[in-house]
């Protein structure tokens, strides 16, 4: 009878601890527990906490030399329950901790201290139960990252709008680059036609904000994925690095800064050097008069002179 009573009180105690955890999302310390349950002795409290921890209802953290008990995600708890053994649970937890950035199998092995074959088996099991999924990263296509099944991979893993199935969509980027350039050129032409004999107004009007370009590109509907203004700015930056555009930053009366872009023509047409075969010759360092490679017998020069 006494045993039943103690069991009952222990279950009660566990429930009380769980309720307390819910009311303290930042976690419970031993002192809080002691204050909230002054009638419960240390032994009872310890055994109740141990039961909750082994059942996977609580998480134990250490902060400033004191222990903190936090309530576990109920979803995680239910899924933990599906796990066959503690090793599976551990792997599942490690993968869960990695969040939507995922974790490499090698890192899981190091964290769980498991053998590779054993880990592979566990991972296969978890995958078959649809608790976790393997995702390929754009940074390393051969590297499998594991994350919880219900999570969407982070942009650093998928590569964002510019990647499809780990492949960089260079053609898509190129098309966007050309379209953005066309937008900026049109803007320059419009400003030149509208503001005759007003050089400064014409110059200022020839700048287009990234939002303007984003709107035009969105209206063109050339992209299947939804592009953000930041995505368009990334593309506009490639135009700057192509020498086709320039950028200035201005701020509105509220003090918010915005980027303005303008199409520019190259100011240097070509330097004379690359017009000659020697300017682009890959073997110029080995080229000497009367040598095996010699300017007198150079085939590139012959072609150049004949063209």
């Amino acid at each position, binding site marked *: 009878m006494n045993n039943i009573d103690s069991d009952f009180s222990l279950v009660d105690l566990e429930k009380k601890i769980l309720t307390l955890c819910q009311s303290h999302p930042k976690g419970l310390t031993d002192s809080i527990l002691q204050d909230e349950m002054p009638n419960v002795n240390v032994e009872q409290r310890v055994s109740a906490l141990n039961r909750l921890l082994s059942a996977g209802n609580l998480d134990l953290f250490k902060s400033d030399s004191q222990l903190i008990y936090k309530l576990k995600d109920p979803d995680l708890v239910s899924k933990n329950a599906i796990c066959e053994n503690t090793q599976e649970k551990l792997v599942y937890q490690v993968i869960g901790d990695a969040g939507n950035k995922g974790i490499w199998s090698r890192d899981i092995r190091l964290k769980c201290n498991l053998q590779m074959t054993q880990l592979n088996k566990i991972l296969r099991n978890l995958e078959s139960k649809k608790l976790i999924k393997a995702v390929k990263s754009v940074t390393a296509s051969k590297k499998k990252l594991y994350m919880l099944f219900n999570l969407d991979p982070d942009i650093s893993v998928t590569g964002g709008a510019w990647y499809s199935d780990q492949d960089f969509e260079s053609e898509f980027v190129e098309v966007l680059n050309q379209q953005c350039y066309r937008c900026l050129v049109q803007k320059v032409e419009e400003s030149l036609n509208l503001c005759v004999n007003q*050089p400064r107004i014409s110059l200022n009007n020839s700048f287009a904000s990234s939002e303007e370009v984003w709107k035009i590109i969105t209206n063109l509907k050339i992209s299947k994925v939804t592009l953000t203004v930041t995505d368009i700015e990334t593309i506009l*930056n490639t135009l700057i*690095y192509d*020498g086709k555009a320039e950028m200035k930053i201005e701020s509105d009366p509220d003090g918010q800064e915005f980027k303005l872009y303008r199409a520019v023509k190259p100011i240097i047409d070509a330097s004379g050097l690359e017009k*000659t075969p020697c300017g682009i010759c890959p073997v110029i360092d080995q080229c000497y008069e009367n040598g095996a490679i010699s*300017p007198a017998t150079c085939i590139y020069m012959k072609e150049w002179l004949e063209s």
Partner: protein
Amino acid sequence: MVNAVGLYGKKLVEIRPIFPNRVLNLLHYCPMSDINLCVIKLARLLFGEVVEHVVSCLAQKGGAPLRDIIQRSKLSKDEVKNSLCILLQHDLIDYTLSNTNGYLYRLKIDRILLCNRYPRYIYASKFLFGDIAELIVEEILLNGQIIKNELLDQIKSRLADIVEKDNTPPDPTEVDTAFDELARNNFIIEVGGGRMLVKSEVEQVDKMTPTTNNKPSEEVSTPKKGNKRQRSEDIPSAPVSKRLHLEEGTNEINYMMIVEVIGKKYDSIAAAIMRSMLELDANPQESDIITNAVRLKEIKSHLPKEVNVTKSILEEYLTILYEDKQLNTGDPDILHIFSEIVKRTLECLVQQRFGSNFGRIFRIIVHKKSLEQKKICDMAMLPSKDAKAILYTLMVEKFIRMQEIPRSLDCVASKTFHLFSLDILDTCTVVLSRSYKAIANSIIRRDWEVNSNRQREMRLLDKSERLKTMKKSVLANTDGNVSIDETIRELEESITPIESQQLKILREKFDR
């Protein structure tokens, strides 16, 4: 470049000229082998094979006395002396008194390399002062230095030749005007002495033997720019000769480049305003860092007639130039605009040599100074594999460099930052050195083409002579043979139509 000073109503514009001593001489960083090769080949191109040998000796030794040059070049004494005379006349060498070897002749490498710019000096003079000025500059460059009267006579006779062809009456006063214009704008300077003096210098140096107190037996004065008074005191009867002021010419070429760049970026009006501002700063003193400020009114009145702008529009243009942070035209230091032009030229060069993707990555490094590989790949929006290949190709070609910054003491590669960066000076040196080699290679190829053409012509002439003799011998041994016409026809057919055309040109050349 353009710096607004004072209140809005009294806007002044400052211009700073290019001072040669402020520009870093990249030649010190280029491999000497490429420079020497270029210098030697330029000497060959301008003055022929004999001078090339002399220049080659001087380039190898750094400086050499007359007897060493004769010994090394295996040329006759007269040939060496004449070569030195030519080089002195063109201001391509100088000489110093050595303690042991008498006079040492040294190449003026910087000056010889400026010979590459002769066409640009000629173009600049034509652009600024007209066709006759172009003729005058051409003639001066051809002679190195020339006495004024001799120069004017030659130009007038050249003009008379042109007039004969075009049937337009000559105007001799135009030559004097053009000459005065060039002199007023500091394009032509007096060097004193004249050509005869140059010859006498070589004679004196040749005769001179070092005395015990290591002083020359006879004082020899070097031709120096702007040393007219001293020269006229020494040799009062010596006629004053003229030389092109290459520093002024170089400044003018640089100014033209700025104007061209402004024209391309904005429009012809902005370019004309920039040109006017540069022209208003006509005689910058090298000792002054800041030139005289120019009033808005002055710029407006100095603008060409075809550029008809109101004061407000002019102000707008000046504000645009002042606010331009891309080209640095708002910076009072003109060297900053040149550094921008240099960067753009390098970007253009990389793009044209390797392709647009290379240009993009090179520009990223130019803009961002120092970046990691991953960051560069992300910014370039190129497939990672391609971007890496581009980066390493640029590094191998010495356009960019990689710096390793270890994060741990054991310098493990996985814990090391690999930063790609650009040193404009290094990249310019690489490009400059390649340019010199390209120039030398072009001259070598040109000579080879000329020689092989000459040999081909000689073979053609031989062939034609042989055919003529054969024809004669056939005709002499006719004896009523019927097939004689056929034999002659066969002989004539052995010369192809192209060959006969070449022969015709050759004969015309010989007749002349």
